[in-house]
């Protein structure tokens, strides 16, 4: 076959290049930007799934209380219900007012029932959209905290438009004229996570996961058995270091040695440090540049083969392209 490989984006090159690509991210924040640094610390994918789901991990409201000051929660979608599985409001981050929106899991069965195990209904995503608009209107940076098994798959969700609400939330983020930093706290489950997951910088805690479908769901489809979830997790490359290699996240926030659940304060401090550093950078970038860079960031995902006759000039991955690199250089100033 007379085709040449043409990488339209997506996969990061091996270690040295990738450090050059976004090494600036690590500058002030102690972030991990090179998955190869983590080789010694990596666990099995299935362990990663268990850790990311650990009920004693710090969840959104706790992270907000620890990393932000003066949080005032805002409620409701203005049309149906206040969904407890999504929380959000206005807070200060190191003195800077921001809008923060996150998925909220419980730390106990009782709390999980109240929070629907962090699985939002459509009205939750519509509340998120409303808060995104508040951020945009008043030029407040937006921080989102992703932590959900996925959007709630029950019939009420279907009746009220789970798919429409997720699509609309993603659309709102792609064009939101204010800086956005995403942090994956624990479980990034499918489209229900992505509805909070489109931003200028996407960070993830070291033991978090992010996947297109739950390992159990994948196993049921691929191997016709939910007990094959471990095998599915292995195939899916859903652990944080994989996500870093794939470019799905820009950097990882290191967790305390035993995992985030062993030291909530240290975890929260690390998140705060990372957020402050990223927002400092983004604050210096004109909004029009943010928007075009955000577009290119997500535009670049996907590795495809294209025959050369249709490809006049090979395209470089988004983080290596002129405009984006210029932006990052400016962001380092």
């Amino acid at each position, binding site marked *: 076959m007379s085709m040449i490989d043409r990488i*339209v984006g997506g996969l990061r090159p091996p270690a040295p290049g990738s450090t050059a690509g976004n090494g600036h991210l690590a500058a002030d924040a102690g972030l991990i930007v090179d998955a190869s640094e983590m080789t010694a610390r990596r666990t099995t994918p299935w362990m990663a799934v268990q850790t990311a789901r650990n009920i004693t991990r710090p969840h959104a409201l706790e992270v907000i209380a620890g990393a932000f000051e003066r949080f005032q929660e805002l409620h409701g979608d203005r049309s149906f219900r206040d969904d407890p599985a999504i929380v959000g409001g206005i807070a200060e981050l190191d003195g800077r007012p921001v809008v923060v929106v996150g998925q909220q899991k419980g730390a106990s069965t009782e709390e999980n029932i109240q929070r629907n195990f962090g699985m939002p209904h459509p009205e939750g995503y519509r509340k998120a959209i409303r808060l995104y608009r508040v951020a945009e209107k008043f030029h407040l940076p937006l921080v989102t905290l992703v932590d959900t098994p996925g959007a709630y798959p029950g019939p009420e969700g279907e009746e009220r*438009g789970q798919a429409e609400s997720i699509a609309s939330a993603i659309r709102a983020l792609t*064009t939101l004229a204010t800086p956005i930093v995403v942090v994956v706290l624990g479980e990034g489950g499918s*489209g229900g996570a992505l509805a909070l997951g489109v931003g200028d910088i996407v960070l993830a805690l070291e033991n978090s996961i*992010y996947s*297109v479908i739950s390992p159990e769901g994948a196993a049921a489809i691929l191997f016709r058995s939910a007990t094959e979830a471990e095998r599915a997790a292995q*195939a*899916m490359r859903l652990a944080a270091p994989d996500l870093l290699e794939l470019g799905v996240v820009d950097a990882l926030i290191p967790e305390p040695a035993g995992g985030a659940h062993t030291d909530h304060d240290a975890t929260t401090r690390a998140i705060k440090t990372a957020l402050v550093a990223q927002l400092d950078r983004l604050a210096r970038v004109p909004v029009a540049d943010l928007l075009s860079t955000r577009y290119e960031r997500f535009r670049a995902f996907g590795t*495809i083969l294209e025959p050369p006759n*249709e490809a006049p000039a090979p395209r470089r991955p988004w983080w290596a392209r002129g405009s984006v690199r210029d932006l990052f250089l400016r962001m380092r100033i």
Partner: protein
Amino acid sequence: MRLRNPFGRRPKEFPSHLWTQCPSCGEMLFNKQLARNLNVCTKCGHHFKLGAKERVEILADPRSFRETDADLSSTDPLGFVDSKPYPERIAAAQAKTGRRDAVITGDAALAGIPVVLAVMDFEFMGGSMGGVVGEKVTRAAERALAERKPLVIVAASGGARMQEGTIALMQMAKTIGAIARLDAAGIPFVTVLTDPTTGGVLASFASLGDIVLAEPGALIGFSGARVTSETIGEKLPTGFQRAEFLLEHGFVDQVVPRDQLKERIGFFLNAFRVAGQDLRWSL
């Protein structure tokens, strides 16, 4: 073309290359006649699935369709292996369909109006969206924007392509980003939801049409009905996640029989074009 019948019983008394039993009314339909009727049951109007190529033929004006990006095909970003490696699945699907991936895109005239057209192919790995579908839909939207032509997408998909993992998931943000630019520029975007349109395709561009049409009886939903049913531990009511259910719940503008689709889309695009004359998207 052999028709698949995922819902009802297999035809028994007739050789299956000649006859197909309607899963809705039980009528035995002569395949050639069924194809002539756009794969719609002549007795009860049940809409069988329709191939992507046939779909292009009934929407694009004769000889107007020019395919674009036909040669894009997928790599294997994860090195994914389940019961067989992902590249083998792709090769099999390519051999089966004669197509490189699960969407056909191109320029066409529709009822005389120049449009960019994208038609998804359920036969290719369940119409799943990986990097190629995402890239082709995005290019289609970008070309619609650059040339200020309406974008028409016919969706048919089981959702994001699992074998490309989070790279497939990111196609939702990628395609929506392009659609959002189209929206901001005031360029019309029409989607047609066909049987089935689910998961990450419904939760991205398919739901965001200025006009959202659906075919009668099409299965349309975010979660698989099996998952939903297991979530509540009950059977779901008849008609759950069907096109008419979405109409009633406010997510679909019209349920349109297949033989009226082209005229209907043409009507809307023409209304938008006349109104926008010398103003925005029309040239």
